[in-house]
């Protein structure tokens, strides 16, 4: 697991931590079932306050990425988890909204947008 805090970042530290862990879970860098360091161990390791890591984990828990398991610690939840799907869905929506808004600015119509989508999907499948 990799966590890097950038003080220049616009995001508060807890948000940076949450985002980085979220990314790594979504990309599979942190596998499901993996046990994350405890809130306090993480705080000590990266040199931030306990409340900060608590909040980061709290957010991730609410989003359905992790859960505290008695006796084991904080565990990464399986990726077919319902809440997780919602997260993925939201990201897709956000990206598509971006695409739509850009398309409109560029003067593309719906059909042209769909064509782009189809082409991209097809090339992804070949990879």
């Amino acid at each position, binding site marked *: 697991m990799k966590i890097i805090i950038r003080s220049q970042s*616009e995001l508060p530290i807890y948000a940076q931590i949450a985002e980085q862990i979220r990314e790594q879970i979504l990309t599979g860098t942190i596998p499901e079932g993996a046990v994350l360091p405890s809130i306090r161990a993480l*705080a000590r390791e990266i040199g931030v306050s306990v*409340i900060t890591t608590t909040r980061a984990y709290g957010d991730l828990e609410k989003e359905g990425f992790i859960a505290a398991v008695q006796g084991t610690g904080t565990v990464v939840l399986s990726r077919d988890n319902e809440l997780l799907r919602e997260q993925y869905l939201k990201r897709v929506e956000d990206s598509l909204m971006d695409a739509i808004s850009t398309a409109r600015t560029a003067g593309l119509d719906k059909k042209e947008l769909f064509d782009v989508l189809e082409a991209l999907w097809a090339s992804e499948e070949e990879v």
Partner: protein
Amino acid sequence: MELLEVRGITKKYAKFTLRDISFSLPAGYIMGYVGRNGAGKTTTLSAITRLIRPDSGTVTIDGLRFEDDPIAYRDSIGYIGDSSYFPRRMTLRDIRTVLKDFYPSFDAAAFDALAEKWELPDKAQIQTYSRGMKVKLMFAAALCRETKILILDEATTGLDPRVRREILKLLQDYIADGKHSVLFSTHIMEDLQDIADYIFFIERGEKVFCEPKDDILESYLLVKGGPEELTPELERLLIGVEKHDYGFQALYPTDSALALPPALSAEKPTIDQIVVHILEGRE
């Protein structure tokens, strides 16, 4: 009930009064106690360690007041100050003897190990120690026995950054089991910027605020702009405006009704900047 509860501490001196200081610190967290020199940090801490007796108010550590059991109360505090309190002609060995005599939970082996790790000479008089060594000795004395709370009064002032980093790591180790807490007074706010969970800001003997550090950081933005961009409306809203010939700098409360003009530069402030601007705003 939290590990440390301070309620209504008041202490009057000829030229200074500490007024109605109250706060609590739950077990497992670090609270930074910040303020200018002379604002009342040391007085507050002295009232908690009972180096002085407050005129009114109560302090409980794990539910215990000093009056209930002075021995247990003193035993539960590990204190590290900015000057060495060890009798200066004593040696490390003498101090080990005294600590063993008075503190049943003192672990002499751990103490020796720490002294060796930090290269603290065994037979030299304390007065020959450098400042850094004296602070390390105070830490060794506090860490090698069972305590509930560590109280630091400007303990890191004057130490080089490497040693300060070491000490901050020690503090985080100390709270790692969630049962111990640290109260850390300093005017070097970089030390608190990262590891403090709560910040208590005191000025002229009174509380300015006591909040979780993350909340404080989110409550303000540090804004900068050109001189023309500082409208009277904006100036009333901003905190601690510093003007110079080519621009200004101030704190902007993020919960303001007035939106921040996009032309201005806005960045996350440090605790230091927040404190400085709030102090300026009060002048």
